[in-house]
Every structure is written in C-alpha cells, then in structure tokens.
C-alpha cells in the first residue's frame, strides 16, 4: 500500500528538486502507478501549481509540460494534426477517460515502462526530455538511463515534416497492450519503434520508402528477425514476434497513405 506522511505543492522547480533529493520523498504525477506500489513516501511533491499541465505549440514544435494529462494529449488539435492522429491513437485505449484525465505525460515517460504506449510513440518523434538539472536528453537516451532524483520538466518535440502512425494490440479493450508499434517517415528515413515486447520500446531505422510493398515486406522481415520478445501472462514470445511483423507492415501502409495525402 502507498502511504504519504506529508504533502507539498511545490512553489518552484528548485524547491521541488531540493525536496526530491531525499530518497524517501517522491514527485507525484497522476499518482496512478505510484498508488499501486507498496511504498512509504515521506513528502509527496506535487508539481501541479507550476503551469506544467499544458501543451504549447510554436511554429517549430511543441512543449509538453510534465503534468499534462494523457487526455489533453489525446484531444490537442495541434499535436494530433502534426502526428497524423498517432498521439490520440496511442493513448485512447488506456483504461478510461477518467484515468487519462489524471495520468500524466511526465509520469508515463519518467516511468520508462516496458508496456508504455506513450514511450513507444515519443520514441519515433524528434523528442527530448528536459530535465531540471540534466538539460535536454533525447528520448531514446532517456529511456535507457537509470531513474535518478532529477525532475522531468517537459518533453519538447521538434516539427520535422515527418508523417506518423501508431498501432497496438490488446487482448481486451483497456488492458495493457500485448504489443505496440509506432512509425515515422520523413526525408527518406523510416523509423519504427516496437514496445510492450514486453520490454521497453526498441527502435529500428531504415532509409527506405514504406510505400513500396517490397520495402515494407523487407522491413517487416528485418524487424521480426531482430526483435527480442518475451513471454508473460498476456502473450508468448513467438506470438509477439509474429505481431511485430504484422504491425510494422500496417504502420508502413499507413505511413505511405499519410505521405501520399500530404
């Protein structure tokens, strides 16, 4: 069970960071994952008073505050326009609207969960984690870093003219995914991320046009051959490998369609 001795709504990032240096204190995002853990928190540090609960768009990109709710990412017209609806597709199956009004983008990325739809999506965007002390770190690098006591302030996404697609497979609606797949195509480069293997999302980069059926076949076979999958109560390793091939092909087809209509 989760227990919290003190609650502090931080008045500045510096105050939050200082409190977070003590091992028994914790930043709380939506608190949905934390609530399932068996931990005693001395001080729960709430960042919700710092204006970090929104997505800001400029001509060059997006700045997504760590406290932005998944539901706000799902319904943000600019971000969904840019990602060809992949942002909405990545989160709309996560539990329910009431859950997504609480769960945060910051908590989802910071958690680096293997099953994460959110991490899979951000892995194919030109995205950086902005850490309070650590500065800007590419998302792929951040995903591999060990959790420390820094604060994830926001995620920045550069607009690079790519098109995007997102697919996932679930055993039942609203359950954690069996496999996730995101794709980006732009400037002749194709990037695919496959997550919920059940391990964390891994990326595959190609210089090919997903619109050519032969290329899509080649890419799909390559992903199938290279991807390392595992078994858990949701699915077996072999089934996941098979799904990886199917989803990469579907993502390639959608990317080709998006590129054609752009």
């Amino acid at each position, binding site marked *: 069970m*989760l*227990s*919290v*001795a*003190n*609650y502090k*709504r931080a008045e500045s990032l510096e105050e939050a960071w200082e409190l977070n240096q003590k091992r028994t204190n914790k930043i*709380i995002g*939506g*608190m*949905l994952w934390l*609530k*399932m853990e068996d931990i005693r928190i001395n001080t*729960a540090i*709430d960042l*919700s008073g710092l204006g970090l609960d929104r997505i800001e768009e400029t001509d060059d990109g997006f700045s997504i505050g760590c406290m932005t709710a998944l*539901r706000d990412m799902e319904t943000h017209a600019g971000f969904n326009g840019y990602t060809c609806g992949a942002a909405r597709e990545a989160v*709309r*199956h996560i*539990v*329910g*609207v*009431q*859950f997504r*009004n*609480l769960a945060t983008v910051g908590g989802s990325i910071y958690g680096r969960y293997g099953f994460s739809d959110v991490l899979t999506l951000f892995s194919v965007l030109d995205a950086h984690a902005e850490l309070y002390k650590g500065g800007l770190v590419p998302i792929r690098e951040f995903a591999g870093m060990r959790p420390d006591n820094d604060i994830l302030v926001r995620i920045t996404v550069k607009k690079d003219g790519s098109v995007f697609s997102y697919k996932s497979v679930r055993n039942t*609606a*609203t359950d954690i995914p069996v496999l996730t797949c995101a794709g980006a195509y732009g400037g002749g480069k194709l990037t695919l991320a496959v997550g919920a293997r059940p391990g964390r999302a891994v990326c595959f980069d190609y210089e090919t046009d997903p619109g050519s059926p032969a290329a899509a076949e080649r890419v799909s076979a390559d992903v199938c051959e290279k991807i390392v999958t595992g078994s858990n109560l949701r699915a077996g390793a072999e089934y996941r490998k098979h799904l990886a091939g199917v989803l990469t092909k579907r993502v390639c087809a959608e990317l080709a369609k998006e590129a054609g209509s752009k």
Partner: protein
Amino acid sequence: MNIEITVNGKKLRDEIDADMMLIDYLRSHGCLSVKRGCETSNCGLCTVFLDDKPVLSCSVLAARADGRSVTTLEGLRGEAEEFAGFIADQGAEQCGFCNPGFVMNAIALFREDPSPSEEKIKEYLAGNLCRCSGYEGQLRGIEEYLKWKKQK
C-alpha cells in the same frame, strides 16, 4: 493538513491526513454514491468531477483537491435521475453497483458532446466496468435518452 474543497457547491474546511484519498474524504461527508470497486484504478465506479472533469476519486489525494471544486452524483440529482430512468427502462441496471460511476461519466460525455456517435459513446465509457449488463442495454438507454433530449 488543512484543506478547503467545494463539494456539490458547499465549501468544506477540514484537517486531514496527507494520504487521505478523495473518495474517502467525500464518503466521510456523506457522498455515499462514490464507491470503491477496485484497487487498481480500473473500474470507474468512483468517478466524480474535479473542476468539471471526470476523474477517479480513488486515485486522487484529497490534498490535491484543495482549493478546487468537486461534484458527485448527489450534486447532479435532477440531471442524473432523468438519465438513469432510461437505463432502468432497458433493464441495464441489474445489481446497480456500477451505476453511480457510469451515470457520472455519461453526463460528462453529454456535456462534452451532446450528440456523440456510437463509437464515441463506447470509447468514452470504456473505463466504466459492469459485471452484469453486457453493456448493450446501457448503450440502448443512452441512445434513447439522447433521442428524447433532442425532441424535448
């Protein structure tokens, strides 16, 4: 710690433990429609509005609601009764346990989109689990209610 929350339009001031969940706070103030149906933030039974957005009160610290307003089914009496009648007419309320959370989230949907498509209804209410009804009756009830609202 001290908090001040407006619950169903009434300002309440209390001294609470830092880890008191909003659901327990609301129940301690007589909002017994708000129930706990799971320990994993999955069932939607505990749905309330926090500043007009539907959230899971089992997963929010009461401390986080300090300075904000909360609405429960008790605060939506007329609107909720009107809608719940259509659900009952379809036999979609069996044990009735899921009903308060379901009604709250359905009202949140109608406020956001007064004419939702079937797909949108299903997607919006996917986080409200019901062990009895099989959901079809609930869907029929919503469609009948929306038709009636339009004619009204």
